[in-house]
């Protein structure tokens, strides 16, 4: 099965999110399903994820260890905030089927956000 960098980014994040431990590129390679990508490919993916702000690298260790910057639930909350809150400056970003919640409608927002992630 051809693996694009995008789907590989997803698999790597899923692995990093699934544990509290930081991982080396070799540990990640061993945890990924076959055919496992080459370590250089994984390093490219990790560099991209670091640039996007999802992954932090511990460069004091050899080999470098990688851990997620925030939990999956925290990123999910960021995404749902985009979707649910009708703050003026973000209104043109996406088009909802039914309008969102105004930023001061805190009770509705909390109800909608509960159970996400």
């Amino acid at each position: 099965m051809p693996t694009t960098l995008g789907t590989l980014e997803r698999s790597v994040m899923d692995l990093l999110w699934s544990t509290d431990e930081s991982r080396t590129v070799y540990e990640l390679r061993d945890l990924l399903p076959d055919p496992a990508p080459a370590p250089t490919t994984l390093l490219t993916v990790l560099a991209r994820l670091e640039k996007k702000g999802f992954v932090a690298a511990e460069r004091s260790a050899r080999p470098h260890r990688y851990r997620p910057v925030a939990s999956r639930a925290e990123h999910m909350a960021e995404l749902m905030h985009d979707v649910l809150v009708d703050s003026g400056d973000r209104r043109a970003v996406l088009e909802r089927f039914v309008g969102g919640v105004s930023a001061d409608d805190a009770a509705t927002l909390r109800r909608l956000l509960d159970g996400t992630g």
Partner: protein
Amino acid sequence: MLETAAALTVIAVLLAWPVPMLLARAAWPARAPATALVAWQAIALAGGLAMIGAPLSLAVAGYGDDLVRGLAGLVRAIVAGRAPASAMVLLAVAALLGLWLVGHLVVTLVQVARQRRRHAVLLQLLSSAHPTRAGARVIEGSAPVAYCLPRGSGSATVLSRGLLDLLDADELDAVVHHEDAHVRQRHDILLVAFRAWHSALPRFPVAALAEGRVAELVEMLADDRARRSIADAVLARAIHRVGEVGSASSAAAAARRAARLSAPPLAASERAAVVLGSVALVTVPTLWIALPALAGAGG
């Protein structure tokens, strides 16, 4: 040119307040959303042009019978150091207004593109492909939401787990057709333009009103497109079900959208009149001040 400046000032004032208020209060836009969107665009464009054109034509008054010759005359006077301060101030006002509006458009385009890029990155990591609907993404989340992230060819329609649980297959079809319409008809361009207009005039209530109305009309337009393949009753049910879960204001907006499905569309002759009026609003003043022959003949 003094008469032109006076006429443009009148147009700018009319388009800044009474005309958009009338349109915002009218009931017919719900029966002809595409036509109403043409009218809103004409008001914004003609209003902006008149706002810039009024000080500009006042500045060049006395230097020529039309804008082109007048501007050339004023520039020659400035180069020669003979231009009065008043003309230079008016010219600067017109230039700054133009830069202000264009600048806000550019800044808004960049901001929205950046926010969409960030959202796309989050989606890539947090959503999965829908098992049967090609192109649709699913996010885990109990809030029933459906939306599209418009990014040209990379546009995505996103459905939440809560929505999949709430709607039956037909209602889901309605939602997907509605979101496809947003992507295909590029509604995001309109929304960004009115977002920019509002951010350029943040304390101007009509700009906020226009942005809200345009957003609502765009939803109605997407509904009308979905109605080509979906029965009205199914679409109304989907709107009701999703709307009920949100806030009171979103439920009210959903009720308006469902109610309009049973209203007859506006007559073709009335739609044509609005479109003609909108085109005239933009073209007549522009041609009047820009075309030397016309302006020369008219005064």
